[in-house]
């Protein structure tokens, strides 16, 4: 492992002061993809972006980068054996246009463990801490680290900020984040509920508060981040996360595309015996071959399953899959409405939450007990976001809000760097004064 100098750990040039313009590259790594967007801050204007796809071993289709600047999109076929190589190819594309030269990086890091409760500038010290916790999210954290190092190498001198999916959930109270297993084990292995998708939950909740003209620190909601891959629900009270359906890992909670979500603990043990003690096999089964894919046996995408059911009815695997998927969401919405008490809004976001009215309808119907009533007409025509799909008699707003994790990461990065600059600048002034 090479720990680089991260030269701006000790101080930042004056261009990073609050109010200054900064072009931030936001990097979001998946297991075999790297999404990037260059956002000019503080005006929040996207200048360029794209996605490197099929990083890693060769697949049926070639590796490629879909790169766009303004309205122009181009596809580059290029071999990328790892995320560092992908970053280098992206750097080459960006270097063709000097007007989009970046000033800083904002990295999405899924798991901040118990160490990072807010965004952090990458220094040699924070990089060491990140190394310590990368096993907690084996699919997401290692490629993010690889890219952090690659950025320092490709753009020496540019500051990097890690923005954590878990950070927003640092406010979950102990009684909600503690698992009831022996204390000596939870303390030794640092096991607790971390919660995920925090960047998205916070972003859409802030948007919803803005739409409803409420100060965020007085805004309460239940936020449903329903992605085509992962999904989670978050209970928010006075602008703070108080619970999340994901837990120690992103495996717990809702039925997801290939993840099982909640499971009886004894069944994980049964599976361990079934696979003769191989934790890798069990982990792979529960993370990559369960959920919608495992239940249906035909597709990992709930949209395909719902579409199949529209064409054929009856007691089929796809029917059971759709029911289990929706039922789990509905139950958790009930749980979190009870926890929040008097929510201002129920929010739907991400691919499924934003684009599939059938899902919103199924999980919101028959919830009048909680003061929640969805309007069928508005729900069917929520094409322009943000959209209010609540019935006029609903005491809780039902909002469909587009998530924008990259913008949220750019905001955090900009905020942290200008804060650090001001802090260091002030400290310098103070020190000089003392001298």
């Amino acid at each position: 492992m090479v720990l680089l100098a991260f030269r701006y750990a000790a101080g930042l040039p004056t261009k990073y002061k609050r109010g200054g313009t900064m072009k931030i590259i936001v990097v979001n790594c998946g297991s075999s993809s790297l999404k990037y967007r260059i956002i000019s801050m503080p005006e929040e204007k996207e200048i360029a972006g794209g996605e490197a796809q099929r990083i890693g071993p060769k697949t049926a289709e070639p590796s490629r980068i879909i790169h766009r600047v303004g309205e122009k999109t181009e596809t580059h076929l290029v071999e990328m054996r790892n995320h560092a190589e992908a970053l280098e190819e992206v750097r080459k594309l960006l270097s063709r246009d000097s007007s989009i030269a970046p000033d800083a990086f904002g990295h999405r890091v899924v798991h901040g463990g118990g160490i990072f409760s807010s965004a952090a500038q990458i220094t040699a010290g924070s990089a060491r801490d990140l190394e310590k916790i990368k096993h907690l999210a084996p699919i997401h954290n290692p490629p993010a680290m690889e890219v952090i190092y690659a950025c320092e190498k490709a753009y020496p001198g540019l500051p990097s900020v890690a923005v954590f999916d878990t950070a927003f959930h640092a406010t979950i109270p102990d009684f909600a984040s503690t698992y009831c297993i022996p204390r000596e084990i939870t303390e030794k292995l640092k096991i607790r509920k971390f919660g995920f998708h925090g960047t998205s939950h916070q972003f859409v909740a802030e948007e919803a508060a803005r739409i409803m003209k409420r100060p965020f620190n007085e805004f309460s909601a239940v936020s449903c981040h329903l992605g085509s891959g992962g999904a989670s629900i978050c209970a928010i009270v006075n602008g703070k996360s108080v619970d999340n359906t994901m837990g120690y890992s992103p495996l717990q909670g809702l039925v997801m595309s290939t993840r099982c979500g909640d499971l009886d603990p004894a069944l994980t043990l049964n599976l361990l015996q079934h696979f003769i003690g191989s934790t890798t096999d069990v982990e792979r089964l529960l993370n990559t071959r369960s959920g919608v894919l495992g239940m249906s046996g035909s597709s990992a995408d709930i949209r395909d399953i719902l579409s199949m059911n529209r064409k054929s009815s009856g007691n089929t695997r796809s029917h059971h899959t759709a029911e289990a998927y929706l039922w789990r969401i509905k139950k958790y919405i009930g749980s979190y409405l009870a926890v929040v008490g008097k929510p201002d809004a129920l929010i739907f976001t991400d691919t499924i939450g934003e684009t599939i009215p059938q899902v919103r309808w199924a999980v919101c119907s028959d919830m009048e007990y909680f003061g929640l009533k969805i309007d069928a007409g508005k729900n069917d025509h929520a094409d322009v976001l943000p959209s209010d799909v609540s019935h006029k008699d609903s005491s809780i707003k039902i909002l469909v809000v587009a998530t924008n994790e990259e913008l949220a990461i750019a905001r955090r990065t900009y905020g942290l760097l200008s804060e650090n600059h001001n802090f260091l600048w002030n400290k310098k002034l103070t020190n000089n004064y003392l001298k």
Partner: protein
Amino acid sequence: MNIVTISQNISKIEFALFDGSCGEPVSKGELKNWMNHEIIGGIPGKIATHFSKSLRKQEKTFSANLVCIRVAYGGQEFKSPEIATARSLEKLKKIENAAPMHIPALIELIGAFKNYFRGTPIALVFETSFFTRLPERERNYAINPGLAKEISLQRFGYHGIFHERAYEYCHEKDKRLSRIISVCLEPVPEICAVMGGSPVMVTGGATPLEGLPGETTCGDIDPLIILSLSENLGWGPEEINNAISRKSGIYGLTGRKMDFTELFSSADPDAIFARRLILYRMLLATGSAIAAMGGLDAIVFSGRYREIGGQIHGYLSSKLGKFPEKHEILPDQLLKLTTCSGMLAMLKKDRTHSQKISLDNGYSF
């Protein structure tokens, strides 16, 4: 009609004798550490001796017209109580793998009763029968159904007799009460949403480990934690099972053995935290149950710790603005329920109800 009731768990057998009026038992007792091949054959004799001695004091003699045995797990095979026959024992053998700790010993116990009380019918009353009506959407876990079948991976719920009786109790009081939350307060507590007499949501899972934390059981945890214990501590399935079923729950949080009554009255800081945590989990389950039924008419507490129901009701009411002002407490004990509810159910009712809630018309729950 004299009815002997038998209820057993891993550590003990509780037994009682009723005179058929479904009132309080005429005599009752318990035997500890019964799950031993050499002991099981002699258990019916010991119980008969206990009853005989007890009745002698009342100048009566002991006789049994019926033996009712409570069975914790019957899988999908047993949808209602059954008289133990060669066929039902065959069916029990078929599901041995799903509950390897219980069923082999139980089969042996049934054989011992058959031998001792020759000619007396032996009824088997299953905690899981009530849950054979659980809708697919609640029953299924999100894994491959072929594998689920292979390792008996389906949600049941483990206090069916309590939940069924809780519903009947409310419904007998007021026919309009059809959406009930039943909170069974046993060492492994369980919350069930019962709608129109059928379960629609339950916190218990394929085993009693899932759901609410118990006196020594862990309740809901992230599946990856089990793998983490195996990888980081090098533990095998038996060690992990021991930790999550015997050293977790209230015991795991407070570091000492404590029942729910003590937990709800203790001023110890660890106990206060554990109480807060369990109440919070109950709130989550309550919200879930309300969503599952589309509302709520009544909440009923049962089980040996049912008297703490008042505190739980107070907490839930304070969190949920709209909540039944009063709660019900089911007065019956498990042994009595096993007799009255289970047997009456067998004798009077056709238990093969069709599911009350159909989802065939789209996905509107």
